[in-house]
């Protein structure tokens, strides 16, 4: 059913640390690999390894630059974008066939591909571009939070996390229950101020982001500019400066 459940037990999701992400696209590659493996799963590519390739991805990493008003320098950061498993998921309620649904037990938003008619309205309703229509199978694809890993009894316990979390080389991605105030992700959100994307869309995303730390003024003083500047050092350093300045 496309009515949204309350999800009072668990709210599983990802915490993504933009301060740590180095933009390697490792999560993109491992996501594509895991979600294309097996008989049932398909994230198709068209013209792969040829001219004009186009394919379906559940996770994409964007690159941005922003002005640091404190240092007047440009800073870059990377931004992995995937489904946020919103509490008020508009993609679920618009679905006419009942293919889109949000699980009551853990809040994961999924697509039942056997019911999807490929109208694409859920992709229009998502503010974040988290859903992509697979052009070969004709059904909507989205992040499943690796529901086939996190509850797997075959995988060793340490592998029972979404593959993007498992594969991230810098530990920029964490998986956990945001409904539990004592979970690692909840603690980090509290400690570092986790934010929602486009809160004005009133989707109440479960996934949270930690923004890049703002670099201080001292962080950007380059060596070159120090040499050019007059120094006001005193004491021993001042003497060295005066002595060196004579030559």
């Amino acid at each position, binding site marked *: *059913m*496309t*009515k949204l459940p309350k999800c009072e037990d668990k709210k599983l999701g990802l915490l993504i640390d*933009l301060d740590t992400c180095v933009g390697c696209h490792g999560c993109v590659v491992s996501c594509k690999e895991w979600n294309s493996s097996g008989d049932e799963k398909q994230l198709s590519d068209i013209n792969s390894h040829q001219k*004009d*390739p*186009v*394919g*379906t*991805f559940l996770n*994409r990493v*964007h*690159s*941005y*630059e*922003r*002005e640091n*008003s404190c240092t007047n320098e440009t800073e*870059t950061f990377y*931004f992995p*974008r995937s489904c946020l498993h919103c509490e008020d998921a*508009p993609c*679920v*309620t*618009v*679905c*006419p*066939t*009942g*293919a889109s649904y949000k699980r009551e037990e853990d809040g994961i938003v999924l697509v039942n591909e*056997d*019911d*999807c*008619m*490929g*109208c*694409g*309205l859920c*992709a*229009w*309703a*998502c*503010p*974040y*571009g988290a859903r*992509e*229509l697979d052009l070969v*199978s*004709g*059904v909507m694809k989205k992040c499943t939070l690796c529901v086939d890993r996190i509850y797997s009894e075959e995988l060793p316990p340490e592998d029972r996390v979404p593959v993007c979390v498992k594969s991230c080389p810098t530990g920029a991605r964490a998986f956990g229950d945001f409904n539990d105030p004592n979970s690692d992700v909840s603690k980090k959100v509290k400690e570092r101020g986790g*934010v*929602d*994307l*486009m*809160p*004005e*869309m*009133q989707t109440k995303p479960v996934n949270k*982001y930690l*923004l890049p730390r703002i670099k201080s003024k001292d962080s950007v003083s380059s060596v070159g500019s120090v040499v050019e500047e007059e120094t006001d050092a005193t004491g021993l350093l001042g003497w060295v400066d005066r002595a060196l300045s004579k030559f």
Partner: protein
Amino acid sequence: MHPAPSIILFTVLSGFGFGLISIVGLLQFLNQISTVDIVIFSAIGLFFSIIGLISSFFHLANKKNAIKSMSQWQTSWLSREAISSIFCLSIVVGNIGWVFVQNRYINEVGIILFLLSLFTIFTTSMIYAQLKTVPSWNNMLTPALFIFTALAGGSILLLDYASLVLLLIFGVLQVLFWYIADQSFIYKETSVGTALGFSKNEDIRAFDVAHTNRNYLLNEMVYKVARKHAIKIRYISFFAAFVLPMSLILMFPGNFSISVLVIGIHFVGIYFSRWLFFAEAKHSVSFYYN
């Protein structure tokens, strides 16, 4: 948004069909129409509605599940649209059959058809108007414009001076819709800053894209139309959908063959209007690609 021909034809043709059905229904309720005209014009309305619905079917990427779209009426406007249109068209068929066989009609069926076809057009418009992600659609002007576009088109064949009033309301709503869509205040809350979790006015630019080629998101939701062309198309649309039909109806009131010509010209105008409705609409995902 991508102006897909299947969706544009769907909204234009089924809009006209249901508009015609609602006008027939109203006249039937008011005893202002002959039994022959009920059969003929209901059949025309039925034809256009069905062509429109078939066109929308071609938009689906997985057509075999189309029947399941009738199931989620509790939350989904698209589901309500599917149910409402099938229900309305069934009553139209029943009404045509009854009138054809009995050679008389039941007035009350007319008001049901009038309200149900208006509701169907409303559900179509709400598929778009419900989307917070597309601010230029996300207001009540969208249903108002869709309903009066349909009523104006549907009235051209059956009403003389009343169709002028409906056309005038359509014209005003159309201009108002374009005016509002141009205002920057409709995007007042969302920016690349809020898309990335920063504040609204954060100075952020993309310096690299997330993929080597275009993808579904860009093709579907980041359609860009040149501003200068959009303005020209608005003039063409307004001239064909509003100015010419008004002038021709005023010059040749009650001339049926002119009405048919007017419908043809009006269609061209509405087609361009709907093309712009999609092509000019900006989706919030485009902020990630700024």
